[in-house]
């Protein structure tokens, strides 16, 4: 059975693999965090890990928007759909994520709530126009690529006087999360030491530019290479990181210069700044409370803010204790370290968000490395038994 896709430039990939092998010092380990779930997916889809030497490791980061949304916020969205009777519009990825009591938006829909999968905030606006008698809430999730579309939706709603549209804002930002991983000792003090550099996200960086990463090089002495989405991009960027590490350089480099500039998409940034402001703190699954890491809607636009418009109840949302999603999102555990992987938790019947989203690490391991992972888990269990005996 073939899980991993071949790609046309196999020869080029292999030659890049050889260049990486030649550059990587066999006497040391290289741990690079790919922040973005899209990169995680590409690394698995194309088997990039197998094309680089064993001492070059990809540490999967928390850049999967579906994965990092804490259960409390999902429970809030379900409450909006069920108790407040709104039409709740959501990107498809979010629908199957289990909330409290394993209830998902899809389950709420099956129970009669009006939950609709949309491709774009444009679709949510269209639904609001078509149902002037109903409240329509868009569940806004994601990093800097999905925030501008949410900003446009609010600006459009205001311009049109579309008073039945609002946004439940859960938009988060990439640089503060990276800072948190390096800075917060309660997360894992060893992680900051262990990481040798970062692969910067592709499309997020096309919006924010490369400048917001410069503090990482300056303050934390970690090199960053912004990488395109294609497997060859990831490999090229990995080679650039290895060179920086070997030469003791810490720079922000841009492998994806054909799309990413230092300034980014200023028009999108201005729109976001007009509609949103920074929250003091926001809860992330896996990272806990991360200061100044998320956005909320400015008071001037409160009429379009679902959190201002609807009274949401206090909840005691508890994550499933056995689910290792939080540690996996911090990059300190792998899916094989989770007892639920492949047993209680599969994409068909997910226990945690990392198994739901195709950008989640667990889903990537399940899709592309299932057999290897299950074999490693069995070997780990056997070793533990021997050690205990």
């Amino acid at each position, binding site marked *: 059975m073939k899980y991993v*896709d*071949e*790609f*046309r430039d196999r020869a080029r990939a292999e030659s890049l693999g050889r260049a990486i092998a030649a550059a990587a010092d066999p006497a040391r380990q290289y741990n690079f965090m790919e922040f*973005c*779930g*899209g990169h995680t997916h590409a690394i698995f*889809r*194309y088997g990039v890990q197998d094309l680089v030497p064993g001492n070059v490791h990809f540490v999967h980061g928390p*850049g999967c*928007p*579906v994965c990092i949304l804490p259960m409390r916020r999902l429970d809030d969205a379900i409450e909006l759909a069920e108790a407040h009777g709104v039409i709740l519009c959501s*990107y*498809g*990825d979010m629908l199957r994520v289990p909330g409290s009591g394993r209830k998902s938006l899809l389950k709420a829909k099956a129970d009669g709530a009006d939950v*609709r*999968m*949309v*491709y*774009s*905030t*444009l*679709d949510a606006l*269209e*639904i609001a126009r078509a149902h002037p008698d109903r409240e329509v809430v868009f569940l806004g999730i*994601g*990093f800097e*690529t*999905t925030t*501008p*579309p949410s900003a*446009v939706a609010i*600006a*459009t709603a205001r311009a049109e006087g579309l008073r039945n549209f609002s946004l439940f804002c859960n938009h988060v930002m990439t640089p503060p999360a990276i800072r948190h991983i390096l800075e917060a000792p309660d997360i894992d003090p060893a992680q900051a030491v262990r990481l040798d550099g970062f692969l910067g*996200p592709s*499309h*997020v960086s*096309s*919006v924010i530019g490369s400048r917001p990463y410069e503090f990482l090089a300056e303050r934390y002495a970690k090199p960053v290479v912004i990488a395109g*989405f*294609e497997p060859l991009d990831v490999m090229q960027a990995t080679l650039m990181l290895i060179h920086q590490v070997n030469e003791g350089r810490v720079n922000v480099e841009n492998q994806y210069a*054909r*799309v990413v500039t230092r300034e980014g*998409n200023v*028009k*999108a940034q201005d*729109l976001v700044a007009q509609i949103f402001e920074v929250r003091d703190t926001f809860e992330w699954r896996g990272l806990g409370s991360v200061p100044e890491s998320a956005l909320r809607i400015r008071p001037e636009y409160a009429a379009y803010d679902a959190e201002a418009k609807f009274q949401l109840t206090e909840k005691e949302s508890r994550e499933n204790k056995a689910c290792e999603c939080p540690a996996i999102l911090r990059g300190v555990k792998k899916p094989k370290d989770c007892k639920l992987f492949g047993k209680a938790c599969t994409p068909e019947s997910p226990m945690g968000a990392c198994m739901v*989203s195709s*950008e989640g690490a667990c889903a990537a391991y399940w899709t592309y490395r299932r057999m290897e992972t299950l074999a490693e888990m069995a070997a780990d269990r056997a070793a533990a038994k021997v050690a205990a005996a």
Partner: protein
Amino acid sequence: MCLAIPVQVTALLAGQMATVSAGGVVKQVSLALLDDVAVGDYVLLHVGYALHKVSEEEAQRTLALMAEAGALEESLAEMRAAP
């Protein structure tokens, strides 16, 4: 959800909208996040919004690669599924 797909602008519409096409799928998208887009330009499309202009060469290369990996069909299906 993070993936953006290169599409070609085929017509400019009112209200900062445009018609684009990719792999036989024709769709109306928003140009609200970009300036100076012309018919024939290639843009990276993300959740219904053009995020960035790309060269034709870059667009074709990415599309070919996505097609090979089956990722193009997934993205197009997402676009088609919209109400």
